[in-house]
């Protein structure tokens, strides 16, 4: 519980109509896209950086946690107010401040919806590459805080590769600018990288300057079918080994295609064990030579059939199938765990095998889907959270999957972050020394443990 006058002070800072304390509102900010939840004490929707700074100062004075929240689509529990406190709802800070076509940069407020930003940028003939599948509901602030990536990550990288400058309210309420519009910037510590992926624990991001790239001239899509999933996985590694970097390279197993077909049919074949869906972009000439090479590699990897989409409509059809995968999974299962283990790209065949073994060992349905071009696997566990016995097996399977990913030189998360859910694996990846280093950073900048406490295996209150 927070002192009763805090809400009044928040009202003074942000205005009466932007502070919410009723149980209904608190409930609405108690969850994100995970199955976890916890109630905050108060919700405030600020409009300016100055307001946020005042709010954080107040929170420090009163020792109250502050949890920044964008679209609330977090898949790792990052927005859950586990220790109560103030939820900072960022939706009112939703302006695109500038699209600078001369410098190929843009500056936005954190509450801008990612897809809205994409559209604005595309109108100028430019592209902002990071394209999380949640882009129609996630915010730019959330993307930076989670270092979000998407299917285009294979070629274009993730959010951190585009952040040039940030305005941040520090955990003690200071206002700070790091980076700027320059492409080259090597002064001092790379704080941009530190904040990108900090999951709301090191600062509240209040303004973001991003690098844009020219929109590619052409795109082509290829769909290759394989009799075994192993062959498909091998094709993924082989394409990269042959030094072709497609825009997107998605692996799908038999089960996921079957689910998609029963959900919103797009004509995926039912008699293959694996398929890869590839898009390349670039100049008209590059695109055609690359697609031809990809086709050859797939054939060399025993692909049963290689289809090159003949026009935009056919390509769109294939991608529509891929995009409805999430819906198809949900439509078929009460609870879906979208896992996010990532391995070096040459290890894709190994992790695919391991996931299949784990599924068998624990008797679970785990369709495999992945932005495999960047080694990012999405094994999706279909289960029912009401079945306690099965949930135990699910937990064990997830443990084993992360163990496997790390053993292959991989990482816990390719894009969803650590939040609450993956805290227990942090020591596996970083060791005690690595964790201690992170904790000392947190402690140095946030002595009162105000910003998003209890996440990312950083110290808890009283620890």
């Amino acid at each position, binding site marked *: 519980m927070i002192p009763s006058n805090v809400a009044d002070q928040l009202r003074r800072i942000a205005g009466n109509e932007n502070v919410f304390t*009723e*149980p*209904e*509102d608190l*409930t*609405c*900010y108690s*969850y*994100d*896209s*995970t*199955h976890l939840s916890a109630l905050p004490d108060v919700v405030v*929707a600020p409009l300016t950086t100055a307001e946020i700074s005042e709010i954080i100062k107040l929170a420090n004075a009163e020792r109250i946690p502050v949890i920044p929240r964008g*679209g*609330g*689509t977090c898949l790792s529990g990052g927005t859950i107010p586990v220790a109560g406190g103030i939820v900072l*709802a960022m*939706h*009112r800070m*939703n302006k695109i401040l500038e699209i600078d076509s001369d410098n190929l940069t843009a500056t936005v407020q954190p*509450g801008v919806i990612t897809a809205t930003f994409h559209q604005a940028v595309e109108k100028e003939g430019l592209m902002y590459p990071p394209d999380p599948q*949640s882009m*129609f*509901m996630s915010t730019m602030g959330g993307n930076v805080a989670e270092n979000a990536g998407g299917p285009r990550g294979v070629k274009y990288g993730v959010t951190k590769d585009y952040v040039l400058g940030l305005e941040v309210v520090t955990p003690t309420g200071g206002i700070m600018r790091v980076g700027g519009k320059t492409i080259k910037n090597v002064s001092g510590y790379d704080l941009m990288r530190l904040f990108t992926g900090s999951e709301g624990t090191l600062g509240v991001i209040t303004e973001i300057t991003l690098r844009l790239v020219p929109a590619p001239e052409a795109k082509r899509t290829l769909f290759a079918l394989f009799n075994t999933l192993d062959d498909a996985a091998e094709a993924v590694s082989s394409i990269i080994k042959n030094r072709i970097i497609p825009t997107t390279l998605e692996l799908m197993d038999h089960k996921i295609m079957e689910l998609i077909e029963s959900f919103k049919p797009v004509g995926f074949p039912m008699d293959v064990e694996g398929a890869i869906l590839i898009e390349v972009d670039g100049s008209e000439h590059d695109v055609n030579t690359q697609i031809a090479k990809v086709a050859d590699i797939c054939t060399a990897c025993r692909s049963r059939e290689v289809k090159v989409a003949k026009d935009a409509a056919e390509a769109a059809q294939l991608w529509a199938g891929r995009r409805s995968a*999430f*819906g*198809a*999974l*949900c*439509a078929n299962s*009460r*609870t*879906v765990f979208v896992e996010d283990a990532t391995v070096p790209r040459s290890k894709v065949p190994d992790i695919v095998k391991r996931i299949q073994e784990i599924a068998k060992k624990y008797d679970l349905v785990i369709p495999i889907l992945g932005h495999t071009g960047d080694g990012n696997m999405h094994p999706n566990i279909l289960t029912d959270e009401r079945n306690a016995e099965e949930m135990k097996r699910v937990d064990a399977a997830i443990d084993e999957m992360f163990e496997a990913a790390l053993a292959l030189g991989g990482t816990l998360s390719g894009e969803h972050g650590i939040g609450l859910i993956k805290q227990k694996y942090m020591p596996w990846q970083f060791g005690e020394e690595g964790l201690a280093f992170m904790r000392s950073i947190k402690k140095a900048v946030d002595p009162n443990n105000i910003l998003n406490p209890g996440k990312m295996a950083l110290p808890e209150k009283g620890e």
Partner: protein
Amino acid sequence: MTMKTLKEMREESEKCLRCGLCQVVCPIYNVLGSEPAVARAKVRLARELAGGNLKVTPRMKKIMSLCLNCKACVANCPSQVHTDKLVLAARAQIKDEDGLPFLLGAALKQFLPNNNLQGVAAKASYLYQNLGLQQAMRGCGLIKAVSADLANMEAVMPKFAPRTFRAELENMKLKRGGKIKVAYFLSCMTNMVNTGLGKAVVDVLERHGCDVYIPPEVQCCGTPQLAYGDVETAAELAKNNARLLAATGADYILTDCGTCGDMLRNYEELVPEAAGFTAKVMDISEFLVDKLGVKPGDKPVEAVVTYHDSCHLNRGQKVNSQPRAILKAIPGLTLKEMAEADRCCGGAGSFAMTNYELSMKVLDRKMNNIKAVNPDMVAAGCPACKMQLEHGLERHNMKVPVVHPIELLARTY
């Protein structure tokens, strides 16, 4: 009563995966941007209300009122959560615990279900609107001074016809001897406001060889009552209407209003007496296109027309290609699609009156989409949308009439 209570719908609320995909399509969320506005939140609140963790409070009422029942969330939801039904069930619980505000209760229980009163009121409103009184009242700001709400209600109030369609029907001779027997469910809006549509429907049906029956005692379909949580009155109306319409012995029961049609199609969920009734209900455009094949006349309608999908017709009844087929069949007419034709106009019955500002923001997006097409007319298959669209077009200074596809079809004879 067979409509599920909120408690019985708990399971439905638990289907939500909190993915947030409803954020993409919810028009209310699009305007407000805050979590309570979105379907996901209403589902969660419904769940807590059902489980007893939250109670009926003014805030709960407010949040549950922030829904157009446009079903866009349902159509976009990977786990097919029926947010629309959860919201209605929550409103029913709110009404059971809290009752209805007096005036609203009177409107829902006495006025709308009473054909005679509708006649009197329509006449009074017509006089008010046409004796210069309305202009005077609007002009002098008296209404606004009394209540902003009242002023908003007044602003979106439809233009009433001098005589209701039911009154006109007494002198109209319906042709007999058609091959197919159909019952025409007369909506309140057609009855009180769009009497021309009523005439067009009868004319078109007769020209397609139908014997048209319009049972005089049929009353309001029950949507407004259900929207405000008054399930009992809605159920009573459903029982009565289903009985009267079935008694005509017609093979098909036809509606010209997307909302009424959707409601009639769901009567079985409301009252067991409507069993078997639902299968006969069809939207008039669906009936003409799918059952008979449209036969337009040869008088051309030279106009560029854009079509607005009413939520209840499109997502509720899955009727979207048929009205377009009718428009395309009309000689001289050019159908030009607007962007987001299936996006809610923000009308949602009395929502426009009770949440005026919000409703207008939802409507503005529709208006911009219409502006981009620059049509001569807008077609819509729901008189409630018509009313809202007309208000929006007026606000945006566009002199574009809103017509029902059947009215346009009738002009070809």
